[in-house]
């Protein structure tokens, strides 16, 4: 899997626990900034800052409704980030499996 530059923004956005919690909340359905701020000990402007990071990373979008501007989660960047994460772990494990095979070969050739 090739590394897409946009993933950096995705991972940076996901590195913050508040932003992950916001995404988890949005997974249950769209919400306004006020609704999102309610469970957190945070002001609406602070939540808005987090939303801007998420929006820039393409992880959420804002509705057009001028009053409410509901926030929605966008699936694709998340799916890409998750796929890359899993690919990385598999890469580490693939290295170690190659090492397993190499060790077996060395044990055989060295008669151990």
């Amino acid at each position, binding site marked *: 899997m090739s590394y897409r530059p946009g993933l950096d923004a995705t991972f940076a956005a996901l590195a913050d626990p508040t932003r*992950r919690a916001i995404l*988890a909340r949005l*997974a*249950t359905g769209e919400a306004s900034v006020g609704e999102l701020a309610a469970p957190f000990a945070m002001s609406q402007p602070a939540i808005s800052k987090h939303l801007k990071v998420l929006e820039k990373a393409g992880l959420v979008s804002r509705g057009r409704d001028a009053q409410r501007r509901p926030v929605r989660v966008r699936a694709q960047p998340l799916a890409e980030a998750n796929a890359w994460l899993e690919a990385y772990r598999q890469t580490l494990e693939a290295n170690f499996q190659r090492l*397993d095979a*190499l060790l077996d070969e060395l044990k055989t050739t060295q008669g151990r």
Partner: protein
Amino acid sequence: MAQDKLTVATQGDREVVFTRAFAAPRDLVFDCMTKPDLVKRWLLGPPGWTMPVCEIDLRVGGKFRYVWRNQDGRDMGMAGVYREIAAPERIVHNEVFDDDWTGGETTVTSTLTEAGGRTTLTTLVIYANEAARKGALVSGMTDGMEMGYARLDALLETV
């Protein structure tokens, strides 16, 4: 014998510990980690990448340099310096990627313990600071269950 699964755990503010067991005596594992001809055969990265450069000067203060290359000819390099060597049980080195995607130099301590013909490799990675570790972890140094990613998995099922 089945191999132990790769485990990943965070420790303190800026450390990550990987462990993995191998069905081999530790001097063989040590050789595979320190002899270029052997390192090049397993430390390869994603499918399609090769390791055209693997230079190792295995002494305290000695340098190593790794370069990986993909099918498109793109290179990714890493270099470091050995700080402690106690063959075949312990190596401490510093390392940094050429494009520094981990946010500074990391210190890596590799410890090999042998029991019953099996060797456990414990790799302690100390990042420059908490932010660098966070960046590395979310860039895929862990398996989705760490750092609250269980929630993301649940999220992905719903979207």
